[in-house]
């Protein structure tokens, strides 16, 4: 869930194509547009093609080879890498973990963010300050956040240890225990990103015509009714956007896992990307790793498009 995912806001716009507005553009100036196109488009186009699209295509190509990255790929293995990936229990675990992260984002993080957003958009002193505080974790680098929480969870020196000792029982090693590590990570994910979703919701709440809420007051809605019957439906597109970020972001989760657990203990906290790194990059299994990349890509694109089709149609 890195910052780049913000862009997805524009996803809804992506398919929109040319609207009536552009139709107004005069055609009598057709002559003068070519110099602009020829000068303005190529830099972006070239960079994007060479460093984004081609590597993606090459990943698809490599994924059919057994290759350790030395020299050129020569050993064609067909679909074997894909079979290996899908049979790998750590990969299955990674898929489950990604699912879990999505679930927690949807069921916990977004409601929490929404709840906080409604609180910090009320007329109370210090609301702006609270917003800043809540947003703070989001601007910290994932690596730093992961490191900080590694310390918090540390059974010897960390805060978890401190609390446990205070209550007189033995310090748990949350990150070292297969049963708890993933939950510990989920907590960090929520901690790190709820502020971002909260900001989205604040922006969404501010975009709601204040007089509509006043109309609800006049109509006699209680605070909760106003929220449920007016605010929430009007936040629809923001909620969908937020969900979209949560989903795409969770699929991209990597930077934070590395300092926390690196995917361990015994692969209990792998995500797709850490799996790719641990099993593809560090082991120099380029073919295998590329297969993971291709699978991730397919998942992202499928989710993005079906989500867009199902939920963002009206935006």
């Amino acid at each position, binding site marked *: 869930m*890195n*910052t780049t995912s*913000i862009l997805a806001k524009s996803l809804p716009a992506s398919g929109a194509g*040319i609207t009536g507005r552009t139709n107004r553009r005069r055609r009598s100036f057709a002559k003068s547009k070519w110099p602009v196109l020829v000068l303005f488009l190529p830099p972006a186009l070239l960079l994007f093609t060479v460093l*984004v699209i081609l590597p*993606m295509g090459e990943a698809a190509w490599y994924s059919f080879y057994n290759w350790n990255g030395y020299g050129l790929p020569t050993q064609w293995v067909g679909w074997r890498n894909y079979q290996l990936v899908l049979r790998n229990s750590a990969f299955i675990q990674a898929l489950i973990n990604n699912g879990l992260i999505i679930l927690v984002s949807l069921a916990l993080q977004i409601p929490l963010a929404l709840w906080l957003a409604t609180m910090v958009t009320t007329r109370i002193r210090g609301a702006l300050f609270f917003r800043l505080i809540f947003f*703070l974790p989001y*601007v910290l680098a994932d690596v*730093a956040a992961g490191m900080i929480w590694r*310390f918090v969870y540390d059974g010897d020196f960390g805060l978890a240890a401190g609390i446990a000792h205070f209550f007189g029982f033995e310090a748990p090693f949350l990150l070292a225990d297969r049963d708890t590590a993933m939950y510990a990570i989920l907590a960090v994910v929520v901690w790190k990103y709820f502020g971002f979703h909260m900001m989205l919701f604040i922006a969404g709440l501010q975009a709601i015509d204040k007089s509509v809420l006043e109309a609800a007051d006049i109509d006699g809605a209680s605070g909760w009714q106003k929220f449920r019957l007016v605010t929430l439906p009007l936040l629809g597109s923001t909620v969908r956007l937020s969900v979209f970020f949560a989903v795409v972001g969770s699929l991209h989760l990597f930077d934070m896992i590395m300092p926390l657990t690196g995917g361990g203990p015994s692969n209990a906290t792998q995500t797709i990307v850490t799996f790719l790194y641990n099993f593809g990059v560090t082991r120099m299994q380029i073919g295998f790793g590329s297969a993971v990349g291709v699978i991730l890509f397919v998942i992202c694109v499928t989710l993005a498009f079906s989500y867009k089709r199902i939920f963002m149609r009206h935006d």
Partner: protein
Amino acid sequence: MTDIAAPPIDAATEQTGGRRLSVGTRTYLYVCLIVVAALVIVPLVSTALGGFKTLSDLRGNPFGLPSEWQWSNYGDIITSQRYWLQMGNSLLIAALTVFLTLTFAAMAAFCFAHIRFFGSDYLLNYFLTGLMFPAATAILPLYIRIRDLGLLDTYWGVVLPQVAFGLGMSIILFRNYFRGLPVELFDAAFVDGCGYFGFFWHVTLPLSRPIVATVGIISFVGSWNSYILPLILLNSESRYPWPLGIMVYKGEFSTEWHLVLAFITLTILPTIIVFFLAQKHIIAGLTAGAVKS
């Protein structure tokens, strides 16, 4: 005259109008907010304080104030070359990334926003695919490509992929903004004798400061915090940006949490300071256009 960036109405900033909240509601709000704020703040503060402790102090007393302030933990790092080197590297990489992203994306977005040409839809969607997947999915081929370009272990080797992966979003943000400029401005400029270049230079760019700030901040934050690309593409520690540096440091001083905490604190400190100084722009930037579309 269309107001280009009318600030949204924000109850929290105008403390005056409307009906006042009841005492009960207020108490409820403050209790909830303070609890959550504590959850956010405590890890950060203990990290900073931990940097002032000795290891045994840390062990016995992770929360509280240091029993003896170990200024040298911080002092040694501050005076070390590696700290400043990493910060400098991060800054340089981020600055180059921001500059190129802004230039390339604004130019491309201008074409998409204002010029009708065959295939513009397809081309835009082509860039949009860049939003779908993270650099991680193609990291291995990307590595090989950068190697073939001879850019491995150079600043450009990190900057160019970061720009490339940021283009999709930046172009969309720019394009949406450009299209939001009043059409009449375009007409007026034409009547005044502008061509496309003139319009881009004299009208679009000067009016786009908010979106330039937004895209600039997004790409800066992304670059400043990025880990995986430098991890794969840089070799020399002398070129490491700080997220890599912090991991190396952790590797070296793995059990000396007090030093690690001091190092973490010092590396995130600039981020926090800048955040509080520029919070208005950062928040506006990161949530830009999120609700409007």
